[in-house]
């Protein structure tokens, strides 16, 4: 982008040019600082591992992680596990979005229903979902269904609550407008509530995909033979720390939690499309 401004175009005044230059300079400095920070962290980690300041058995090293990942690429297990988790996450994300919208719409449409169910929704939402996972295995077996349901269970109640809150905060004057023009409650829903909630629905979807991933990993911890959650459990059980460190880990052994999210950050661009 800098090359664009290496010479001042005729349609830009000198002051404006100076401002733009300062703006781009600032922008570049921020990007550079970001890259340097992560490079410094990785180099320090690698250096500490090679000089044996830290025990690589517990803390692994960037080089070790890369070589293990390369191995996984070669035997295709990387793609199998990531693909399974990705598919399960997408399935539970789509179901959460659909079911959440339907439930919130129903709650809005039938006013007293929301009043009756509100405390139960709050309780269900605050329930620790990992505690549900063993129950799900008993009810649904150890298949993909269980994992998808685990993913749904983490995200659905919060999704319903926030969507319903958004729906019920729609401008009452806009609803009044619909009624004065002869519209029904159904018209109010389709002409005002849903269109005005599109930004809310989108931001809700962003939250949902992250939570679905959390739920799917929890499910895979307990009931899977494939997937990233399974790899984390497998890694921790065979004490292959450097394997675990490369996986998205929601619940690794507490000591290694910090290093465990390296792969998760790799997934973030997918989650925050």
């Amino acid at each position, binding site marked *: 982008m800098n090359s664009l401004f290496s010479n001042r175009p005729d349609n830009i005044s000198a002051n404006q040019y100076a401002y733009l230059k300062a703006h781009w300079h600032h922008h570049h400095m921020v990007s550079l600082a970001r890259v340097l920070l992560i490079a410094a962290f990785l180099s320090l980690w690698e250096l500490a591992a090679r000089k044996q300041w830290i025990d690589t058995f517990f803390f692994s090293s960037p080089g070790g992680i890369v070589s293990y990942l390369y191995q996984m690429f070669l035997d295709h297990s990387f793609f199998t596990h990531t693909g399974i988790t990705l598919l399960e996450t997408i399935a539970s994300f789509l179901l959460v979005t659909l079911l959440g919208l339907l439930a919130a719409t129903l709650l809005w449409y039938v006013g007293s229903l929301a009043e009756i169910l509100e405390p139960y929704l709050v309780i269900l939402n605050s329930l620790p979902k990992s505690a549900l996972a063993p129950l799900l295995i008993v009810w649904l077996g150890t298949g993909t269904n269980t994992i998808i349901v685990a993913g749904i269970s983490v995200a659905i109640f919060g999704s319903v609550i926030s969507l319903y809150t958004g729906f019920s905060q729609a401008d009452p*004057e806009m609803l*009044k*407008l619909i009624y004065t*023009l*002869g519209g029904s409650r159904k018209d109010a829903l389709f002409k005002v509530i849903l*269109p005005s909630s599109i930004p809310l629905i989108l931001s809700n979807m962003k939250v949902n995909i992250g939570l679905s991933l959390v739920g799917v990993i929890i499910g895979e911890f307990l009931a899977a033979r494939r997937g990233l959650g399974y790899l984390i459990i497998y890694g921790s059980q065979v004490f292959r720390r450097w394997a675990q460190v490369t996986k998205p880990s929601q619940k690794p052994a507490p000591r290694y939690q910090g290093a465990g999210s390296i792969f998760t950050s790799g997934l973030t661009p997918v989650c925050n499309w």
Partner: protein
Amino acid sequence: MFKNLHMNYNLTGRSFHNNAIGKSTLLSIIAGLLAPEEGALYYKGRLLAECAPDDSVKIGYMLQRDHLFEWRTIYQNVILGLELNHALSSENRDYVLKLLEDYGLSAFKDKKPSELSGGMRQRAALIRTMAIHPDLLLLDEPFSALDSQTRLDVSADIAQIIRKTGKTAILITHDLPEAITLADRVLVLSKRPACIKCEMPIHFSVDRHDPIAIRNTTEYQLYFNHLWEVLTNEQSVFQPT
């Protein structure tokens, strides 16, 4: 409040025991959004509540803010009423296009509401109201969100448009000059519970289209002083003269 107000308004304090009763509640009752606790509404001798749905008296309601939907274009906004009444015939579409043309908005019909000025938005809101061919227009402080210069222009503009159609309109305003300039009849409501304190027919010797000329007449001064007296004096209840 404009010409052709054929409504027989026997408002009394008794009809409105509800504490929340005020001018907006009154309009909501006329518009059929709320049922009166007591009493009934007649329009041209017909009981409003007993009209058959296909023969019902259509009420056009303009709210304090225009409430044009940002997710629709101006054209999609003004046909909202037709859409809700399942009346999107080509005849009605042509009528809406003609209104847009008449009110100088046809160049903006594919724009979003945020691209229009306050006055234009209020005119678009009026078209949305007029598109359903209302028999009676209710305007609930429709100019209160505009700055004072725009307000003067837009109110004169909209009053003229409504005059041309010959429809009855009930305008609620807190702005006494606005009421005198625009209305053919001014009704002063008391504080809650609302009852009519004073009814004042308004006549001017000058052209009604020019709000500034009206405000320079001596009649205007007389009306203003008289109504101001009624408004500020809680005790006095003036009888229609």
